């Protein structure tokens, strides 16, 4: 039976927060965790959402940001931000997946959906609120909601043979 375990959610959300900081850092934007769980901006936001599922674990990730942090991190000047937020969300979940893999937790993901709007905010079923980060280019929000089955184990981190971001594995 699926349920939301707040302890596990917190641990996985912490991995997600770390993944988000690493991701934006890789594209030159430093994120710092803000004090609130609500974005303060009234500007139009773009957000990407991806679902994931594994043995005894399933959930969704959401990434949202305004035009400035997206433009700043986009590797192509004048690149389509709708496309970029989808790709960023994909890489965000990819980083989370790698962190989960190091704990022997394997998940498979959907392709992202992208939404635009003002005051986008998730309505969590549990108490798991989003992380809202501050940066020199504006706010970024990341949110993860997770359900697990009773036998789910959040293992200890261990060295993994799987690659990490930036790696090139010759086969």
């Amino acid at each position, binding site marked *: 039976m699926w349920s939301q375990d707040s302890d596990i959610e917190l641990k996985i959300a912490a991995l997600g927060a770390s993944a988000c900081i690493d991701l934006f850092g890789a594209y030159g934007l430093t994120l710092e965790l803000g004090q609130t769980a609500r974005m303060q901006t009234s500007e139009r936001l773009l957000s990407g959402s991806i679902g994931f599922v594994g043995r005894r674990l399933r959930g969704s990730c959401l990434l949202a940001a305004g035009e400035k942090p997206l433009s700043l991190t986009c590797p192509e000047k004048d690149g389509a931000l709708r496309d970029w937020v989808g790709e960023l969300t994909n890489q965000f979940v990819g980083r989370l997946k790698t962190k989960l893999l190091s704990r022997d937790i394997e998940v498979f993901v959907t392709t992202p959906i992208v939404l635009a709007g003002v005051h986008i905010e998730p309505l969590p079923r549990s108490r798991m609120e989003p992380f809202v980060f501050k940066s020199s280019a504006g706010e970024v929000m990341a949110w993860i909601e997770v359900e697990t089955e009773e036998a789910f184990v959040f293992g200890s981190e261990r060295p993994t043979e799987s690659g990490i971001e*930036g790696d090139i594995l010759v086969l």
Partner: protein
Amino acid sequence: MKKVLIVDDSEIIRQQLSRALSEAGLTVVEATDGVDGLEKVGEHDDIALLILDINMPRMNGLDMLDALKRNPRTASVPVLVLTTEAQNSMVARAKQAGAKAWLIKPVKMDLFVNVVQRFAA
């Protein structure tokens, strides 16, 4: 000029890779997913290397890779996988299907170009 096919559903990624490879003197063809990728392979008989994303709509990269390897005409085209995925099971499947390398996004462009030039030679 060597011709490279980039298969990725992200336009930004295709643009980024295409620009880097064009600047390195390669000809680039783009496809948006595995179905489009197979069509492009059918249209261009001189593709020296394929760069393949995994998570794409319509047909994912691993299924496209399997299709390439089943076709005698395309079975020997070198394939580099460029993805956010890092699961051993996926890497193993790609290796078994004949992929030459597995690159985890984001990769540094100079390193990426070097790897492409190496396997497209």
